[in-house]
């Protein structure tokens, strides 16, 4: 363990009068799988959006790898090594499965308009690397066979895996998964759990927002609990489960 790869200090996000994230301090240990849980509307996805720079923070600071992120735009954060998936998947519907993953290699390749337009050797070399890497990540999530299918022709479970492959293709240090298990059946969830472990073995720090407690308990080494925008507890899975505030927050809420 080499200390936190991501730290938030007093991060707050207010939309008009509504405070979605309220003075949250978290530290994500490098190399660990961390889960962020909490009832609906707790501010989990908003926290992700703040980390990835979709919204600017209202106050507070986010540091990644020791670098303050401030107002850095999303695409630069991706280049630094923050990747994510989305609750509603958001694949590129106008591309094949392989192309989706290839676009994930964007920040890890350099050639631009001019090299592309003239098909300079640099572009061909890079394109080869991009393709090989993309196939590697596709095989990692087990979709190698579907490389040439249209992305949206896959069933939901595989779409979610594809989204993870696309995120992995950016070669991140930190991977944020937003409800990766939602809508999957038991078997698929098991496979997802295995995949997340494999990703951990690759040395990538993973943070997931998840409602499925079995999944969380199975893979998360650290759990952070949010409620109404505030961090109410954190610890190992078993510590959190016993926490009174957590139980109170979940009372009346659906517990899967």
């Amino acid at each position, binding site marked *: 363990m080499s200390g936190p790869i991501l730290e938030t200090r007093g991060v707050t996000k207010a939309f008009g009068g509504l405070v979605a994230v309220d003075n949250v301090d978290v530290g994500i240990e490098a190399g660990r799988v961390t889960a962020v849980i909490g009832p609906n509307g707790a501010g989990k996805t908003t926290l992700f959006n703040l980390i990835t720079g979709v919204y600017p923070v209202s106050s507070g600071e986010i540091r990644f790898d020791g670098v303050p992120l401030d107002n850095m735009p999303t695409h*630069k954060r991706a280049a630094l090594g923050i990747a*994510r998936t989305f609750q509603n998947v958001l694949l590129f519907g106008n591309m094949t499965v392989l192309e989706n993953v290839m*676009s994930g290699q964007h920040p890890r390749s350099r050639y631009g308009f001019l090299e592309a337009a003239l098909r300079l050797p640099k572009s061909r070399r890079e394109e080869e690397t991009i393709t090989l890497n993309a196939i590697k990540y596709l095989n990692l999530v087990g979709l190698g066979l579907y490389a040439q299918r249209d992305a949206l022709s896959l069933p939901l479970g595989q779409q979610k895996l594809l989204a993870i492959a696309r995120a992995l293709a950016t070669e991140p240090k930190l991977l944020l998964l937003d409800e990766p298990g939602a809508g999957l059946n038991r078997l698929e969830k098991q496979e997802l759990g295995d995949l997340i472990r494999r990703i951990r073995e690759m040395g990538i720090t993973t943070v997931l927002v998840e409602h499925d407690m079995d999944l969380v308990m199975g893979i998360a080494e650290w759990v952070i609990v949010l409620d109404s925008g505030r961090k109410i507890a954190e610890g190992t899975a078993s510590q959190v489960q016993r926490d009174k505030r957590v139980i109170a927050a979940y009372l009346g809420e659906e517990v899967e």
Partner: protein
Amino acid sequence: MLSRVRGKWSYLAIAALLLFLIIIPFKWFLGQYTVILIFIGIHTMVTVGLCLLMGYTGQISLGQAAFYGLGAYFSAVLTKTHGFNPWLAMLVAALATGGFAYAIGFPIFRLRGNYLALATLGLGIIMAVLFRELDQFTGGPTGITGIPYLSIGGFTFDSPFRRYFLVWFFCLAVLLVSQNIVRSRTGRALRAVHGSESAAESVGINVAQFKVKVFVLSAVYASLAGSLYAHHITYVNPSPFGFLFSVMVVVMAVVGGLASVWGAIFGAATVRILSDEILLRFGEWDVIVYGLILVLVMVFMPRGLFVALKEAYERWRLTHRQRGAEA
């Protein structure tokens, strides 16, 4: 996926097209159709730019006429009034138009969807008025006459026959460049922007920058086309660069099939040939029949001619193979 027609096939297609284009002027087409083909080439260049912008990146523009006109007017003014070498003027025109597109690109692409459509429309309208009103530069509504021809060494492009090769050289260059871009990292980034802007950002694509870049590229294409227009007609006036041209380019792009670079030729050719050839036989009814055909094409081939033809061919090949297997 059209852009993924694999290499061999598309190069075969390019070769066939080249052959076709070279043979055309020598066969019965000599003289008769060169001018129409010149305009098809010029309009294809503008349309390809819009295909990249609309079909690949998903950003609408109703103002391409502005860039087309800027190219034409820069070439006209620089060569006629300031005695520039036409090639230099063309280069300056493309750079200036591209620079202009870059400058307005960032504010314009803060807008999306309908607002973007309106802003580009406004751009087109404003430029059209400026072409007309800045008469100390542009010659006002009557424009600028006597623009020189392009020439290389002692060879002057002073006949339609010669200009035909010139225009199609540029047109094919633009098509090839576009095709290369579409199949590259950049092309994927553009389509990613179309697919989902949030997801594109999340994989490190600078969405705003790519939108502006492709906008600039489309402006440069249009500017080159405009310069060629000016040196072809040797005269510019405001009316070819108005709103109706912008709409026509959109029609060409959609008729050809938005998400295909080569469809642009089909689109430009269809619209041009319809209005300058086929519809002549209908006399005064030409515009009525044009409207009717446009409606029918879109009702029966909503994804454009290029896709419809490709699908028809594939269906034919499929049935053909089945029959072959049965025999």
